[in-house]
Structure formats: C-alpha cells, structure tokens
C-alpha cells in the first residue's frame, strides 16, 4: 500500500510525548507564534483504546496487537482530522504520531521491517518534536495516553524505555526536544 499523499497546502508536524498529560500543552507550544490556521490531532480520536479499556477482558493484547490497533487509530486520525485540515492549508500537530508506534515495537523487540510495513500508509511529517521524559513520577491513568495504556496492559511502567528510544532518535537528528 502506498503512503497517503499529504496535500502540499498545509504543514504536518509530529510530536511524541512520554506523558499523555503533556500532549495538548506541548502541541499548543509547537503551534504558538505560527501565523497559519492550526489544528491538533490527538491519540485515540477513534476511541478504540477507550472502548477496549472499558471491556475489562482478561486476555490482554500483545505488543504486536497494540501496534496494529495504534496503526488503525493513526489511519482514522489521518482520514478524518489530519488530511482534511492539511487540505485547508492548516498547520497540524499530530500528537503522538507514528514514531510512538515504532517506539513500542522497539521496546517489545518487534522487527523493524514489520513495523515499517504497518505504517507504510503514513505521510512523513515536515518537522518532528518530542517532549523529554515523564513530567510526573506517577504514571497517569491508562486512557491518558498510548504509553500509559501500554504500561497498564503490559504490567510495567514503560515510560523510561520509550524515553530512551526518543533520546536515540534525537541523537540521530530525527527529532528535536521541544
């Protein structure tokens, strides 16, 4: 499947956060001072994870299943939020975007080639940011953000592992600390 084509009229910025509570304030910070019309697309706009959390099923999804569900949510956001806003010439912050899916795959030891294929549909952002580290020692509720959701499902606080992934990404010049 080819990547969805992002209209050249707008600007897509990616922002990946460790603490879901940082998502909106950080996205607003990215957009501050920009003259163009702006928009923000946040995690679980499709409500897949919210509904799943409400089901209270004993069998937890594996990391591979979580990546597939995360991809479905990203696709939903692209179709209903991000691409229409870009077509209107807006500057859109996707918080989080595909790197958070790549980070879970890396943390869980899933093959890079597989996750590349899963997210093949996602257009590349023009610029990428990250928010450094967890802002609170306490892990927020599972429905606050994807990392909190995964931590809950996998019974371990994954924030440090995700943070290390983004540290490495930043070292390689693939994103900047906000």
């Amino acid at each position, binding site marked *: 499947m080819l990547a969805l084509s992002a209209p050249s009229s707008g600007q897509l910025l990616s922002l990946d956060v460790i603490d879901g509570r940082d998502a909106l304030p950080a996205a607003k910070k990215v957009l501050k001072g920009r003259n163009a019309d702006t928009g923000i697309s946040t995690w679980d706009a499709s409500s897949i994870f919210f509904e799943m959390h409400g089901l209270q099923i004993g069998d937890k999804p594996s990391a*591979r299943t979580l990546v597939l569900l995360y991809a479905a949510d990203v696709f939903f956001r692209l179709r209903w939020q991000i691409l229409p806003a870009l077509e209107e010439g807006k500057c859109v912050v996707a918080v989080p975007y595909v790197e958070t899916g790549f980070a879970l795959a890396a943390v*869980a030891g899933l093959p890079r080639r597989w996750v590349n294929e*899963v997210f093949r549909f996602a257009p590349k952002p023009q610029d990428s940011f990250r928010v450094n580290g967890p802002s609170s020692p306490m892990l927020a509720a599972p429905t606050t953000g994807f990392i909190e959701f995964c931590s809950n499902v996998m019974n371990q606080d994954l924030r440090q592992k995700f943070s290390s992934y983004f540290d490495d990404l930043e070292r390689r010049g693939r994103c900047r600390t906000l």
Partner: protein
Amino acid sequence: MTENPKQLARRLCDQIQKRGRDRGLLIAFEGPDGSGKTTQRKLFKDWLVGEGYDVVTTKWNSSKLIKPIIKARKNMRSINQQEFCLLHAADFRHRLENDIMPALVADKMVVADRFLFTALARDAARGLELDWLLHIYSPLYWPDIVFYFSVSPETSGKRIAATRTPKYYEAGQDVTNINDPFESYRQFISRVIQEYEALAVIFNFITIDAEKPIYDQHLLIRKLFQESRERPWPKWNEEAIADWANMMPRNREVGVGS
C-alpha cells in the same frame, strides 16, 4: 533457571516435531459466504469429537477484546478498507496468540471457520496489495490443512439471498458504491472468489466442490483429513512460534501436551 523466549521457542518446536502424528493440527475452512463451509465445519468438528479428539473451534472476527470494536464501527459504516484490514489483523493476532497457539501446543485439534486467507481474499478484493497484507499478518502460522469450498458467484449469491439481505460490508458496498446490496454483493463476491482461486493455487488448498451434496462433501473431508494426518509439521511455522514465545507474559507455563 527460567528459559528465555528463544529457548522456549526452540523447546516448543522440538516437542511439536517429536509428537509426530499425535500433535495438534490446525485445519482451516475457507471459502466465500454461502459456500456451506460452516455447515461442513460443524459436521467435521462433531465427527472429530466422536473420534476422541480434543477440538477447539475458532471463528473469524470473534475475539472478545476486538470484535465489539469492529462491530460498532461496522454498524456505523465508519471504517474504510485499511482500517478494516488493520482491525481484523489485530483480532486475528489476538486469537492466534490467546486461543489457537495455546491449543496447538497442548496437542488439540484447532478447527478454524475462516483463517488468514479470508483476510487476504477480502482485502485484496477491496484493492489492497497482497504483499502488504502478508506483511501485516506476519509472522504467519500456516494451517496443516486448508479446505477451500469452491462455489460460483451465482450460487453464493442465491444461497445468501435465500435467507437474508447481505450486510453493508459483506456486500462490499464500501468499495462498490452500489446502493442495491444484492447487486453489490454479486459484484464483490466475484472479486473475492477470484482472489480465493488465486490463493488456492499459491497456497495449495484442498478444493472441495461445494455445489455437491452436503454429506458427500463431509465424507470426502474425513477421507482427506485421514490422509493428511501423516504430514510433517511445517518448519516455516517456527518464526510464528518464536514470536508467540516472545509476546507471551513471562509467567505463563507452556509445554507441548500440557
């Protein structure tokens, strides 16, 4: 000392191979809607139970975790081809990891009413690339036997129309954009069958003429199953076993025949 995922995978693969013809088999029933595969699956399962096998059945899009999510979106007609594919792939993976693999390593017979090939045929008929689909569903666990129930688009259409109006996604109305569900179904199922016929050749399905009498088909399936009992375990399933061992919670005890 606890074994790491690699050691666990190696042990499981060795044990499955050693079990030889006593190992659990994965038997998939595939075919378009209206091909009668569910009828045959039920008959076959009852026969297996009568023969003394421990049988587990798994159905398409049936995980407790993801089925309600897909169902709600289908009812709202709010998902497109790619989301449809990703959500079904998640449902499949969840069932594979939680229902199918544990049953197989415990030497149970797993009878799948639709398996991976349903996704490949339907999603390819919706215009998605087969190569991408195979990646999304990887690592792949190949069934020991795939019974493919072959019918013409006309027979499939007639059998469905005799009982009900095809649902929106079943009729492929999301891709045909045809308002009449029967006409949409006729066109969509032709594409699905075309994809199935290609898959049957590539993946060496056992084709059953699903236009034949029900009991004749059932007897043939029994015969073909008995002939297939001698098949060696496909070694290319090792990757899927290794992945499963890696994904599993560390506290779960796993052993063949346990």
